[in-house]
């Protein structure tokens, strides 16, 4: 449904995207995971035909995003990174405007947005600028959906939204996916990655890995440990000296330690810490999260660079 081949994007001397290739199936919920400035927005804008790539090709439903940009714009729904509706129009006026612009009516495709729009419908006479962050995102999604697009491109839709609204938002995406809409969504939140069918980890304009979240987490190539300690900073300083160390990072209240596969047991780590005067410490083997995968890939990427 979405085919990206060797896309490059350069702004002057700055390379925003470097030979990015990916292929998204029809009806897939695909996540683009990466920190700010990784190139997510540039890629999405190229797909939305809003930016011209410096090199490479991209097609949406076999329509070239450069040559057939007019048709591309008809079959896609787009939600830019920041709130881009008219704050001085009411909820209903915004929705109606976008429906008419796409040559449809609210009634015609109401079934598609019903679940989402119902939540904000009680406020439909309120100006969009006065909505809460979560409600704004729901309205923006409704507006992006109102013309029944085949592809939905959402640029960080959950940034700046509270935890409950974020959860609701992802549930909505699941339902839209079940209706057959192909969704490309970007997020800087690693915990949201597991909610996607497949994800691409992107960093400094390069895609580091593409797989299902499960595969990615299960195929973590090293050993990962969670270490709880009272004095996290001290402990992490000491762990930086441990043999076969790959990385040590704070992870919530604890530390995540990565060591070369098969070189350590929890006992050997415990022993190393006791030897350096650290007591009252628990060491447990841990399953990798997407964040661990990301950090590991990033580190390897930096070492080779």
């Amino acid at each position: 449904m979405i085919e990206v081949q060797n896309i490059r994007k350069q702004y002057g001397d700055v390379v925003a995207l470097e030979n990015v290739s990916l292929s998204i199936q029809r009806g897939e919920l695909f996540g683009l995971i990466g920190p700010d400035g990784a190139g997510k927005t540039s890629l999405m804008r190229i797909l939305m035909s809003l930016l011209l790539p410096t090199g490479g090709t991209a097609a949406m439903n076999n329509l070239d995003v450069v040559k057939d940009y007019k048709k591309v714009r008809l079959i896609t729904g787009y939600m830019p990174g920041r709130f881009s509706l008219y704050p001085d129009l009411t909820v209903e006026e915004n929705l109606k405007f976008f429906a008419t612009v796409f040559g449809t009516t609210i009634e015609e495709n109401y079934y598609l947005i019903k679940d989402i729009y119902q939540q904000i419908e009680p406020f439909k006479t309120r100006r969009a600028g006065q909505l809460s962050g979560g409600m704004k995102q729901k309205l923006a999604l409704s507006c992006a959906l109102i013309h029944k697009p085949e592809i939905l491109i959402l640029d960080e839709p959950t940034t700046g939204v509270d935890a409950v609204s974020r959860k609701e938002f992802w549930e909505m995406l699941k339902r839209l996916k079940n209706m057959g809409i192909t969704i490309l969504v970007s997020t800087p939140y690693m915990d949201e990655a597991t909610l996607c069918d497949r994800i691409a980890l992107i960093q400094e304009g390069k895609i580091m890995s593409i797989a299902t979240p499960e595969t990615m987490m299960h195929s973590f190539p090293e050993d990962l440990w969670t270490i709880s300690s009272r004095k996290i900073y001290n402990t992490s300083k000491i762990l930086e000296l441990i043999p076969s160390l790959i990385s040590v990072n704070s992870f919530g209240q604890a530390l995540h330690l990565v060591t070369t596969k098969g070189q350590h047991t929890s006992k050997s780590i415990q022993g190393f810490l006791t030897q350096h005067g650290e007591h009252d410490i628990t060491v447990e083997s841990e399953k990798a999260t997407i964040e661990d995968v990301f950090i590991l890939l990033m580190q390897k990427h930096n070492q080779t660079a």
Partner: protein
Amino acid sequence: MKRFLAFLRKEFLHIFRDPRTLVILFGIPIAQLLLFGFVLTNEVRNVKIAVVDHSRDYLSIRLTQQLVSSGFFQVAATPTSESEYEGLFRSGKVKEIVIFEPNFASRLVNENKADIQLIADASEPNTAQLVVNYTTAITNNFVKTEFRKEQKQPGINIKARMLFNEDMLDSYNFIPGLIAVILMLISAMMTAITITREKESGTMEILLASPLKPIQIILGKVTPYMILSIVNALVVLLIGYFVFNVPIIGSLALLLAEILLFIFLALSLGILISTFATNQVTALAISGFVLMLPSILLSGFIFPVKNMPAPLEFISNFIPPRWFIEINRTVMLKGGGLAEVWPNTLILLGMSALFIAISIRKFKIRLQ
């Protein structure tokens, strides 16, 4: 079409929900109008005049009495030599000098015509015009009553001279110029701002990503301001006509057509600015300094183009209102037709075509 109408509806909602826009659209034109109007139209009452009577006959004395008894004038000086005239004006002692030629009464009775010369201090042009008009009216009235029994009424030939500002009529009447300035403000500035606002708020990104064609976006943004500009131009014309007695001597249809042309030009200028400016502040700055100031100062609205130093006069050639104000004055005040204003009309057409051409080249169907 439906899309376009929806777009129009949206634009009107933006306009009517933003108090600042409303103030600029309707408050400023009316304020400007009243400001210029009241600064320039003083009531004529007890205006001090000087009378030079070379004739000293019964008619010249009666006419002088008539002028005084009207309540509008007061004789403050009777200079005996021409060298005193300028001093009287400079010191502000009188606003007008009325000069009767020798043998005034006998010429009027025997030859059926006589001359009166009026010299007015046109450094306050509007007052000068009013004073001359009042004097003329009283004189004509005087002749009518004095010779009402005669078969053939004699005529007094009044020669008015505006001192300090000889051609005040075509350079100082403010309504023609004000129309240009107001249209520049509304059409060009507001168009530039409203388009850059979409860019700034990120909604342009969505509009571009929609099936709307660029021409639909532009027309949708511009049409409401075009309608409002026309309304404003008509309001100014009406107020000018009924409140300040500015005549429309020439063809009204031609005047309206020229106004439409100028609105079109101002809108294309606004679109052009919006293709350069990325945010509202820049758009405002460009409109303010590049459009408004020259429109007011260099267009002949306030300072006559003829009196400008050569470099400024040269620059004024590139300022669209300059040509439009000339058209307005010619049509409204001198009763000129297309025969007189076609060169200026061509210049305005050419400028519009140029602005539109550049705008189309510069308008981006993409973000960058």
